[in-house]
């Protein structure tokens, strides 16, 4: 798990724009700067991805295994496809150029265009992460609010202990426990794996989605919930909330209008981080439930030394990280009056 502390500490300091600019221009500059940084990040990532996949060794040898020496025709064919004669620089720029124009190349293993090969898995994973998100966000906030309501009393302690226990479990342990409980051993209510239907999507049978989604929710919610609780507590103990209470505003309104809105920003940051993490972290869950997403595709491609597909998927996962964080920063600013006015004043 990524270190939450450093990210949540103060998102505003990092995103705060230069002062003294004016209104729309300042917003434009801020966004342009962030976009520029995002592009720079992705470019650096592309170099890393390319070098890392190039350093994996000769993919042709890996693909052909012990038939390498016996099958010179296939070797030549693959070499041509890989453009193996060219220098590493020209191969990198060819690849980068292809990426920018939307041409992801051809899969070595199947001979099909990479974009065609990964479009299904990308949709499937996006759906899984989306479902996990729409369940996870309200649930974590609700738990945090209940916890804060009973702060420093027994229900709070129980909730925190349970959350900590779940947070300590790796996702495959959660998945295996859920499988035994709900699919294979105790109750046989939900399917254990996704049996692909030749037409349509995995979620056409909603039951298939239950266990993978539940695993992701159980895996991620404890973190979000604990962070939201911590920032809620901080806000609730602060002087302005105390003042609101003294003015006689009902506790529910204090919670909603004064506390929650201010505590939401660290929540957004940690949710963004978790969602971005899920994009890469679904590998284990997808393997466990045999769910046909990018995780399964990535495992398959690495096994087959299908370099092009590995590169494309790595870039997609990196882009998700960058985009989700960008959106989270934007939301944080829009939801923080202090930062909002700082930008446009």
């Amino acid at each position, binding site marked *: 798990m990524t270190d939450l502390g450093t990210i949540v500490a103060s998102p505003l300091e990092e995103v705060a724009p230069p002062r003294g600019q004016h209104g729309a221009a300042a917003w434009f500059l801020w966004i342009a700067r962030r976009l520029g940084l995002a592009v720079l990040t992705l470019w650096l990532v592309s170099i890393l991805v390319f070098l890392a996949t190039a350093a994996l060794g000769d993919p042709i040898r890996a693909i052909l295994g012990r038939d390498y020496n016996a099958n010179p025709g296939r070797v030549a064919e693959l070499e041509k496809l890989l453009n193996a004669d060219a220098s590493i620089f020209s191969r990198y720029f060819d690849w980068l150029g292809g990426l920018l124009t939307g041409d992801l190349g051809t899969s070595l293993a199947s001979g099909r265009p990479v974009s065609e090969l990964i479009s299904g898995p990308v949709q499937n994973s996006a759906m899984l992460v989306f479902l996990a998100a729409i369940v996870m966000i309200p649930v974590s906030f609700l738990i945090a609010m209940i916890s804060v309501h009973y702060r420093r009393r027994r229900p709070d302690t129980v909730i925190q202990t349970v959350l900590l226990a779940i947070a300590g479990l790796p996702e495959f342990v959660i998945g295996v426990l859920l499988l035994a409980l709900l699919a294979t*051993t105790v109750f*046989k209510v939900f399917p*254990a*794996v996704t049996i692909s239907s030749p037409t349509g999507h995995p979620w056409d049978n909603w039951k298939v989605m239950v266990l993978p989604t539940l695993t992701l929710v159980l895996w991620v919610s404890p973190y979000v919930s604990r962070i939201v609780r911590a920032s809620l507590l901080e806000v609730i103990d602060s002087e302005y909330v105390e003042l609101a209470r003294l003015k006689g505003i009902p506790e529910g309104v204090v919670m909603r209008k004064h506390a929650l809105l201010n505590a939401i920003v660290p929540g957004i940051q940690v949710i963004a981080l978790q969602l971005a993490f899920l994009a890469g972290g679904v590998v284990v869950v997808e393997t466990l439930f*045999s769910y046909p997403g990018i995780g399964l*595709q990535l495992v*398959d491609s690495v096994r*087959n030394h299908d370099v092009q597909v590995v590169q494309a998927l790595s870039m997609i996962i990196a882009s998700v990280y960058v985009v989700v964080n960008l959106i989270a920063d934007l939301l944080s600013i829009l939801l923080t009056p202090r930062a909002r006015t700082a930008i446009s004043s």
Partner: protein
Amino acid sequence: MLIHGATGGSSKDTLDPHAPVTAADIARVNNLYEPLLFWNNNYELEPALAESVEGSEDAKTWTIKMRAGVTFHNGKTVTADDAWKSIQRVANPDAPLSAGGQLSTILDFGACKVVDDTTLQLVLKAPYAILDSLLAEYTLGIIPGGEFDPANPVGTGAFAYKSFEPGKTSTFTKYADYWGDAAFVDELQIQDFSDDSARVNALQAGQIQTVDNLPYNLVDTIKGAGGGTLITDTGAWVPFTMRVDQAPFNDVKVRQAFRLIVDRQQMIDQALSGYGSLGNDMYAPFDVAYAADLPQREQDIDQAKALLKEAGQEGLQVELFTGDDIGSVATAAANLFKEQAKAAGVDVKVTKKTPFYDDQYLQYTFAQDFWNTRNYIPQAVVGTFPPDQGGTYNETHWDNADHRDLVNAAAQELDDTKRAELLHQAQEIEYNEGGLIIWGFRQQVDGYGPNVNGLEGSKYLPLGSYKFNKVSVQ
């Protein structure tokens, strides 16, 4: 509806009848297409699309009589011409496919002819007495006009193509006009699984009905869930390979000493979790000519030490190359050998290579490899002949003219008894001097759900050679 959970399978998957790669491909190919002859469950030849395959007395001319009334999934009748064109596709001398390596070198293409709709005559450049066995491989399915159309694959099998997504799933419908026993189930789905636990979970949850190549450690899980397992002997082996042209193994005493070092039963118990049968340094255990009468070699450390001393190789140090891409058995067996060799004073250094199959492959002095079930002659050719005579994977650099002459003579001998005699002599040479340590043959374990009937184990391929037409689901 029957859903089979296949081992592996990936975006490399293909429906090409003549180039299956993964276990998932093999399962699909066996239900879509059929060769001229079948290997039955006992690894013996029986007629399939051909009613008979008869060799002339000199074993140079072979007459194939096609079975009457067999139709392709598209309704067309199967003719001798389809068979000949399919053979030509596989045995294309420029780019032979997996079943065509041997065929491409022995067929006299100009002289072969389609006599009539039901008769095909194959003429060989040199006598070859076991041509029929080459025609029985599942990788030599007969397709219309010898042309494979990936968009609409057509065969004669009990199931016809419906849909296919590489690395994911494929579906097939029962072929009602099948010439043999029509399938019990109306639809067959073959689902790829990259993870074994997921497959077993799916079987437990009742989502799939059969799994092939079950890892040994999951056998009890299947039984606990009320399912059944199918355990069959195979002729698949993971040998240690000693290069007979390099020191120290150029001395036959050292080779024999190493063969005496191995505790074969312990190898089976540990590397194969007990699912194996003893090997006697000879391959092709299902061949009718297998030399079962030669005494079973057992661990004999004293004699091994004596042999090493005679060879002047006391305190010998060797490096043993292994790797995960040989199969999970290989590394376990290599480490076990290192332990067993200590008793004889041999210091084995195990080097794990990733990948093992790089340009050093076939150069290692002492290493391992994997082989599947084959009969003696084809295996001897590919594994012990010099490369220019067909020995593509001669790991031990074995180059023994006497042995080769015996194998070649046997390949031309139509009389079964005489052929067995020749092959016995050939095996004896390998038993006494060869560079392979063959400690055991793996058993095949497949699993099926509690509601599945009709599965019979086969020595040829997993899950009763994937003949899903025989399977019914309650």
